[in-house]
């Protein structure tokens, strides 16, 4: 058998251990990243319920695909790629339903469709503090592409290049989105600075 599980193991080592049948390794990995994935999803989508569904789906995918993970990219990049793609999937479904039922056209970007419902109100209301509510309000005021790029960068620690690739944007576009998002957040949250 291999050596004992060490909570200080890297993400990649933990995932590999889990893929080889070491169940507790997943629990460590999950506890290590659950908050980041949760914040990324919650702040990108319309409701807490959707965020919970997507959170579950993301981690299900991690468990399912652990054997196939190739450590050519950081685990967090892989994780947030899954999260992003799950969100896009969900958005496409919403878009199809909305398009068929009401709009009859597909004009808005995918992520914007996912956030058709007012994100700021419910999320701000569910925030556990004044600061949390203010942050939710501020993020909800960002254009979806900026919010997504910023959250991938800060929560997923994706590089600009990775953000660009994942969101199918050019490097410059991704960089601009993150920059604009930061500027807007600083402005909206100035009272907390």
């Amino acid at each position, binding site marked *: 058998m291999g050596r004992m599980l060490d909570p200080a193991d890297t993400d990649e080592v933990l995932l590999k251990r889990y893929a*080889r*049948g070491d*169940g507790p390794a*997943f*629990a460590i990995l*999950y506890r290590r990243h*659950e*908050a980041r994935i*949760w*914040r990324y999803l919650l702040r990108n989508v319309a409701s807490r319920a*959707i*965020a*919970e*569904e*997507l*959170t*579950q*789906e993301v*981690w*299900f995918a*991690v*468990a*399912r*695909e652990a*054997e*196939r*993970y*190739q450590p*050519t*990219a950081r685990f967090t*990049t*892989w994780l947030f*790629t*899954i999260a*992003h*793609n799950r969100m*896009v*999937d*969900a958005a*496409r*479904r919403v878009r199809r339903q909305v398009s068929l039922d009401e709009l009859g056209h597909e004009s808005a970007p995918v992520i914007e469709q996912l956030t058709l419902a007012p994100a700021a109100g419910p999320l701000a209301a569910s*925030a*556990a*503090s004044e*600061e*949390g509510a203010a*942050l939710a309000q501020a993020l909800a005021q960002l254009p979806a592409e900026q919010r997504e790029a910023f959250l991938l960068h*800060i929560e997923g620690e994706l*590089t*600009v*290049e990775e953000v660009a690739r*994942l969101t199918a944007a050019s*490097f410059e576009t991704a*960089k601009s989105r*993150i*920059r604009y998002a930061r*500027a807007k*957040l*600083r402005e909206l949250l100035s009272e907390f*600075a």
Partner: protein
Amino acid sequence: MNPMPPDHEETDEADALYRRLSAADPSRPDRRVHQAILEHAIRRCAERSEGDARPASYSWQHTGRRWFRPTAFGALAAALLAVFLLGPRTPRLTGAPPAPEYDTRAASAAGDDGAVMAELGTGEKLAESPPPPPSMLRPPSAPREARASAPRALEPKREAPAPAQESPEPELARAKAGAQASVTNRVTAAATAAADSDAPAAAPRGGAAGAAAQLRGAAASGDLGMLRELHAGGADLNGQDAAGRTALMIATLHGHSAAVAALLAYGADPNIVDASGESPLDAALAADESEIISALKRHGAR
């Protein structure tokens, strides 16, 4: 490698602000989400371990066929040598070790329905044992042995290709293709199905609807013993919940392949779609449940 734009002060300020405010909002998913995730991971892990252990457990049956010849040949040669040397004193050839038996039941059960029925038969013992992880309820003997005679029997269970999610790029390509059945719907369904499993305890149990609800609950938890009892009691196999999900759909959503096999063997209709028009096969394909996909197709799922 990929430096951010040269506005480091702004970067630090905005990011630090975000992090500080985030830290003040310790929001997390519901406890049930945590539980579902960790249970799912454990189940997958158990399946994986089961897959890893399979070649060893198959050695008697499948790989045994590989060592059968040299072993039998060697035993026969030794026996002949013994006869040659001890012939006058040992008139009959009795010392050769018995060759490993080949399980003819397993071989004859290679037919699909036979395998399913064999699975159900051996499932009785497993269903009676208390609360193993659902995946562990999968009876290991007859169907596995039957499959062992098939060309792909030595492949670990989870080696069925699902390249779309193997790496970020294929994952993105898959998302862009938009071909996968709805994640949201699937997860919602799974979550609701989990709720269904709790429902019978609280709801009145009388009547056909109650039995059907209990059946869905058993499907959600992968309880083969309960499924068998409810089926024997006449529960409606094709009863649907408020979202149009049958017990078969719920077992599929939870990845309970043994429960799926049981329900199909009992005669559950594999082509009943839920309220969103999704069939069990759609759900299985979306979740890449190769074993369930095969079972559903064998029973005519479209």
